[in-house]
């Protein structure tokens, strides 16, 4: 272990080069969104699931496909519809006849993959949505009492459409909490759109060559977990999460007024993991305060449950998260007032 630490900086340096290749490829797939691709890769390195929210045609599916292609990992896509059944995702036992003997054999569903793209996940019924709970949290599925491990790594990258909410089922909080990030894909600007029009042939994705393989991805995820989180950074994360609870004395007034439930401890773990992954992405052996601040909104924006008054007063989650960031001192002890 000591040797591993000694060589951690070298490993990180090597990993950063490969990650930069991955990012470069993703930026070719999704033009003009370098921060989003960085967050997506950060989520993958943190071993978390990502919820993409954006209008149709923004490039969500292409982004996930490109990620799978660049990482050379298995990829499956499920279009969530109201009549989709849980077994359609997890798989089911089917009757098979082999050598004259009939037997039930388990037919794996699309969840048995490295990257599962759940397209328009909010269109499936809650029953089907909940079929993903165990897979996302424990990376296993249980069918008829038999638990099966999912491939390692396993990511769920789900998309949901913020419009056409009729006939949709909002994701249960338990499931939303299992997503590491909720990333919003905004409409690209005119210059980016111009690049897309000029460089993208309709129906054909950009030609991508894998820059990683399955082992590399596993190694990177493993390496990200070894990135050091100092006690100061951990304490900062804890203070931020704690301040999201309206009952906490350090919570800013906006939280006390508009937030009904704050973030869970899982949110703190997710934020720490994301900070570690971003440190790896930036070639550091330690997670930094800057990463925590930068990723705070992406990690927390789907975990706060707001009061109805927030909607009435048009207060968004982003406003509240900004207020939390401003209210929480980055240091454990505030500076004395008498110094400058």
């Amino acid at each position, binding site marked *: 272990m*000591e040797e591993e*630490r*000694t060589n*951690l*900086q070298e490993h990180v340096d090597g990993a950063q080069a490969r990650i930069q290749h991955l990012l470069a490829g993703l930026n070719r797939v999704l033009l003009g969104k370098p921060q989003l691709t960085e967050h997506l890769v950060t989520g993958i390195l943190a071993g978390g699931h990502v919820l993409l929210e954006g209008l149709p045609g923004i490039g969500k599916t292409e982004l996930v496909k490109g990620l799978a292609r660049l990482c050379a990992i298995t990829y499956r896509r499920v279009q969530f519809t109201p009549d989709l059944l849980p077994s359609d995702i997890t798989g089911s036992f089917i009757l098979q006849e082999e050598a004259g003997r009939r037997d039930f054999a388990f037919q794996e569903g699309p969840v048995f993959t490295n990257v599962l793209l759940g397209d328009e996940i909010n269109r499936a019924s809650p029953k089907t949505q909940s079929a993903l709970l165990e897979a996302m949290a424990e990376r296993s599925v249980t069918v008829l009492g038999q638990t099966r491990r999912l491939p390692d790594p396993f990511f769920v990258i789900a998309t949901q459409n913020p419009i056409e909410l009729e006939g949709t089922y909002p994701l249960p909080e338990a499931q939303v909490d299992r997503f590491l990030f909720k990333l919003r894909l905004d409409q690209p600007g005119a210059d980016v759109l111009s690049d897309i029009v000029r460089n993208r042939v309709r129906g054909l994705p950009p030609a991508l060559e894998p820059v990683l393989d399955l082992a590399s991805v596993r190694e990177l995820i493993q390496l990200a977990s070894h990135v*050091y*989180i*100092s*006690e*100061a*950074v951990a304490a900062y994360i804890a203070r931020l999460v704690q301040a999201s609870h309206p009952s906490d004395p350090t919570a800013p007034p906006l939280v006390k007024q508009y937030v009904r439930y704050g973030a869970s401890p899982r949110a703190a773990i997710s934020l720490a993991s994301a900070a570690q992954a971003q*440190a790896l992405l930036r070639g*550091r*052996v*330690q*997670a*930094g*305060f*800057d*990463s925590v601040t930068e990723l705070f909104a992406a990690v927390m924006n789907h975990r706060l449950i707001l009061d109805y008054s927030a909607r009435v007063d048009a207060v968004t989650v982003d406003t509240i998260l900004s207020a939390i960031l401003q209210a929480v001192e*980055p*240091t*454990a*002890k505030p*500076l*004395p*007032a*008498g*110094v*400058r």
Partner: protein
Amino acid sequence: MNLDARTSSTLMPALRPLLRRLNAAVWLEHTLPALSVLAGLWATLMVLLKLLAPQWLTAGWASAAVTLCAPLYGYWQARRRGLFFAPRDGAELADHWFRNDGQVSAFFERPALYPGLDIAAFHTQLQQALKARSLRLRPTFYLRRLAPALLYVSAALLIPPRPPQEDPTAYQESTRALIEPIVQRLEEHKDLLPHKRLQEALADLHQLQESQDRLTREKWEALEQLEQHVQDVLDQSRQATTNVAEALRDLTSGPGFRENPLAAAQNPQFPAALQDLKELLNLSSADLPPGVREQLQSTLQQLDRMCQGESRLAGADRDVIMQQLEQLQEQLDSLLQNLEQGAGALRAGRGGRDRGRGDAAMAYGQPQPLANPQFAPDRLENRYLNPEDLVDLGITLLRPEPDPDQFSPGTLQSFDTQRGQAVSRTRISPSQREVVSKYFSERTEQGE
């Protein structure tokens, strides 16, 4: 988890100045409120002592030492609440000011993570970053927080202490010292003074005596006025008695009056003289002593009857009249003598309003024989000039240097050569003058 065990000491030289300032600021932040409160309480105590018990002011000043507890309290409070910046907190703060990427904190906690790090360069960069954000204590900030307490303490110290409460009996004593001679004088001459005026004067003196106020200027002047009034009454009484006595003497010293008063009464001038005496009696009846007035009226009635030649006056009656006249004359003479003594009762330094007090010119009254017991020689040890203590200074053009042991502190030396000769004068206090005056008058009487 023992933080110290895995604390990196390599960062301490860079962190130490930062920690020193931060902890000083924390300590000040907790000391100043306590200092303000203690200083305020002490100032309040001083105000109360000044107003209620000035004699305890020394102890009040000593109690200012309590404010020294404020620094200890501030340190204890900050330590109890864990507000002092530990090296780890300093590393965290430096991390934010350096690159905000967690490197300083991580290096502080686990230096082994950075085996290839150039420590010297890292220190240099860190020190530059800290220098750019170097903390400075703001004196104005602390002064502003301390200002209310300072103002309050200053105001409290400026309040003058209440003068010590004077003993009302002391006022009464001093008043009594002034009143007693007047009362004594009234008692001496109570037979000479009209009863009503005597009672009024005694009532006024009693009122002044009972008053617990200090000896004010008004009271002093009232006493002097009263004394002057007594003197005026005595003077009037003396004048009236003198007039009556002279008129009576003129009446009875006529030719043949002693041998045959009845025949003398038939003298045509006698009724006119008697009438003058009556009118004089009427005019000055208020000023005459009470007993004399009645007796004089009775005698005048008999003289009047004698003047009218009433045959009822037998020889025995004439003897009685003559005896009464002689008694009356003696009484008037005695009365006059007493009044003359009263007129000379003014004392040195008590010259009344017109002549001022203290070192005013002395009035010795009428010359008195040395046999008067009032003037009995009295040797005053070590206070006043004695013949054997006198030193002949001689005549000199130089200012004589008085021997401080030979002069009492109350003397005042003066020396001038304006008139062509050196004159050395020694002025002495009024209380000594009487003694000196008595001494020299005694020597004069003895022809020395």
